[in-house]
């Protein structure tokens, strides 16, 4: 590999094997030839319909649509995120309850409840959910979201911004 710095009329260029990879102007501003920001694993899944919840039964939420999935790691059939890069992930989920009676939204890692994303109050409809930081091994670890309510209810109200599950890699 050959790295060279060449002066130009307005500054200089840095070349790698004859191709410009960085341009520096007279004020020191650096412009890369490609985006400096790496593609970070991220996904956005949602449910734009409704889902029935049996009384007192922890039920996996059906996030069967994707808005984004940079690594093709979200499964819209099993409603499961299995990232392919190891690291710490910020995970968010929100669920629309048409009525609440001791509601819980839970993050399951490898089929085990590891984090209560949210849940409070009884009686009124409203959003339940929250965020968590979770380490994922990048191979076999997977995440799912479950919801609970003492009484049988319907979740969602037919809009994509009411029931969602998303996340992204924060640090390796």
């Amino acid at each position, binding site marked *: 590999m050959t790295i060279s710095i060449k002066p130009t009329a307005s500054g200089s260029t840095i070349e790698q094997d004859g191709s410009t990879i960085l341009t520096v102007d007279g004020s020191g501003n650096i412009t890369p030839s490609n985006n400096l920001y790496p593609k970070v694993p991220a996904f956005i899944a949602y449910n734009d319909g409704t889902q029935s919840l*049996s*009384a007192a*039964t*922890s039920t*996996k939420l059906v996030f069967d649509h994707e808005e984004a999935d940079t690594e093709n790691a979200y499964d819209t059939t099993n*409603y499961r995120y299995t990232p392919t890069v190891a690291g710490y992930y910020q995970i968010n989920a929100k669920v629309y309850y048409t009525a609440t009676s001791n509601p819980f939204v839970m993050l399951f890692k490898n089929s085990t*409840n590891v984090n209560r994303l949210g849940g409070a109050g009884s009686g009124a409809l409203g959003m339940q959910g929250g965020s968590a930081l979770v380490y994922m091994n990048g191979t076999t670890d997977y995440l799912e979201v479950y919801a609970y309510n*003492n009484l049988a209810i319907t979740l969602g109200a037919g809009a994509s911004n009411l029931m969602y599950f998303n996340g992204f890699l924060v640090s390796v």
Partner: protein
Amino acid sequence: MTLYEKITTLYTELTSDDFAPEGTIMLQNDSDGKGDYIKEWNHPTLAKPTQEQLDGIQ
């Protein structure tokens, strides 16, 4: 009749607190078409119902 309804019919002393995430009984549904099932049963005095018992409740 749901699984929760069958269990609370069989054991009328149970309350919703027993089934909450901090409770001793966990019912689960994995949204895979197989329906509700008993994921965990750690109740200190009541025995986990058998499938025959559950099937016998109408």
